[in-house]
């Protein structure tokens, strides 16, 4: 594995006065499933489009396998893209959509058909070659877009919110399928999403972006357990923040709700249950603590005998290693 397979080297881009991407530095490994995660307008799509060649960085360079591709037009780049809208050509059937990018390869008819059928089989759409885009469901259209890009055997597959247009159940099924597909073809996937669960469950590594800047690049676990700043901690999952000194830490500290346990007898901090949300296997509590405006969020597994009610006095405790210290 070369760490420098896809390298984004101090890339910046403005739209008018707005900084879309601000000095982005990334190194993506061969075969990695890499997510660009952030709220809308954070610059993740612009960064993806710069890798594809649809936007040109004002400063900085992009390299694939050490080759500078910054000035190459999209049609000469070793990447292919799955568009958010899927962009299935409406005037062509599924077969011709998938064969679209193979024209230049000048394959014999049988070889072309074999490649297209292979791609259809890969996304489990055997026999769909004769359909047009309006005869496909959203999920099928997404598979066609995937097949059309993968049939080109790109070095990098770029996916722009690939699951955004699908309903929740289909999205969850496609997350697993996309992940399996990526492992089986071994192509580097770079995908853009605003959905943190999607990013956490699918990716090898994630770059969290905000306001055009890359805040942190890490594995899902590390991102969740060791966020490097308040913004990342806040964006990924739920988090309780404690001001300097509040829990005996010199700087800003943070603890995840599920890392805090409740007890009736003893603990580090005393409070009163202010709210209860029962969610079946677990409950979310809001615990009011003296001299603190915001209640502390606690997520506890429900057992037969640990239920708390609003008004109950409780003690909160946590392990020292659950405390994340953040820069102010």
């Amino acid at each position: 594995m070369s760490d420098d397979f896809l390298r984004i080297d101090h890339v910046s881009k403005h739209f008018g006065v707005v900084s879309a991407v601000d000095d982005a530095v990334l190194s993506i490994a061969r075969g990695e499933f890499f997510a660009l995660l952030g709220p809308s307008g954070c610059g993740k799509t612009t960064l993806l489009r710069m890798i594809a060649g649809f936007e040109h960085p004002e400063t900085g360079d992009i390299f694939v396998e050490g080759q500078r591709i910054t000035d190459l037009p999209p049609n000469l780049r070793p990447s292919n893209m799955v568009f958010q809208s899927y962009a299935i050509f409406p005037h062509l059937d599924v077969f011709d959509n998938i064969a679209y990018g193979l024209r230049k390869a000048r394959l014999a008819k049988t070889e072309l058909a074999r490649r297209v059928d292979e791609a259809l089989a890969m996304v489990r759409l055997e026999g769909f070659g004769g359909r047009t885009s309006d005869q496909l469901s959203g999920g099928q259209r997404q598979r066609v877009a995937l097949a059309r890009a993968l049939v080109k055997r790109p070095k990098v597959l770029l996916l722009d919110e690939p699951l955004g247009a699908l309903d929740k159940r289909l999205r969850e099924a496609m997350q697993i399928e996309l992940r399996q597909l990526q492992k089986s073809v071994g192509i580097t996937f770079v995908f853009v999403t605003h959905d943190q669960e999607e990013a956490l469950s699918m990716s090898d590594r994630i770059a969290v972006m905000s306001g055009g800047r890359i805040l942190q690049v890490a594995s899902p676990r590390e991102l969740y357990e060791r966020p490097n700043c308040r913004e990342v901690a806040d964006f990924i999952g739920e988090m309780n923040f404690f001001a300097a000194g509040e829990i005996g830490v010199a700087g800003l500290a943070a603890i995840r709700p599920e890392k805090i346990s409740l007890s009736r007898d003893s603990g580090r901090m005393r409070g009163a249950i202010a709210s209860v949300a029962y969610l079946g296997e677990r409950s979310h509590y809001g615990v009011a603590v003296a001299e603190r405006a915001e209640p502390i969020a606690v997520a506890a597994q429900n057992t037969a005998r640990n239920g708390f009610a609003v008004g109950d006095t409780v003690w909160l405790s946590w392990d020292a290693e659950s405390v994340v210290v953040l820069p102010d």
Partner: protein
Amino acid sequence: MRGKGLLVYAVLYLAFLYVPVLFLPLFSFNASVFIAFPLSGFTTQWYAQMAADGAMLRALGNSLEVGAAAAAISTLLGLLAAKALTRYRVPGGGAILALTSLPLFIPDIVLGIALLIALTAAGVPLSLVTVIAGHCLICVPFAITVLISRFEGFDKSLEEASLDLGENGWITFWRVTFPLALPGIVSSLLLTFVVSFDEFLIAYFLAGDDATLPIYIWGQLRFPYKLPSVLALGALILVASAVLVVLAEWVRSHGLKARRHAMVGA
């Protein structure tokens, strides 16, 4: 009753629109120079007279030529403008669109006189070429309008997908943009052809010695015995227009279908 009143209105409106037009073919087969009831018998002599009228056929030929050229040129220009305005960040795009649309709002008689003065001052001889140029001015706004709405009707990531799959801009135009814009291109060609074909004022000022059909017909109205053959020609043009309208409608509805495909999932 309100429903009945509306029905009467609708019938009257349609009658006013279509009955006079239908008089054209009716009287073109009437065996009398005078256009009046009662009809005095069936004849095809006016069609024969029309076919033998060299000047009229020449005028028809001129109009077809001017219309075809104006339609082709203005649609090509409209295509380029629509592509630029919908696909690229054009500085001052809105202003450009407004400026090219101006001929829609200037009375044709003003535009005709202004062009005549300018062309004469520049020493350009008046001919069908100057008519074509003048007609392009008034046709381009129609072409741009039709084509912009067509371009906005399909996802621009379709063109990006083609680039992404390895085709350059030129091939992308032929493999994606052109087939998807085709219904708009055909609509634009038909519309601009019709605008040019029946345009009178600008042609009148810029035609020089070569009359287009509207100018020729206007000139013939002074001679009552020539009127029936004008009716015969009018009837034929009517049939041709009907065919064109049906054709355009077919293309349009076809285009709508393709557009629905293009919009799905966008």
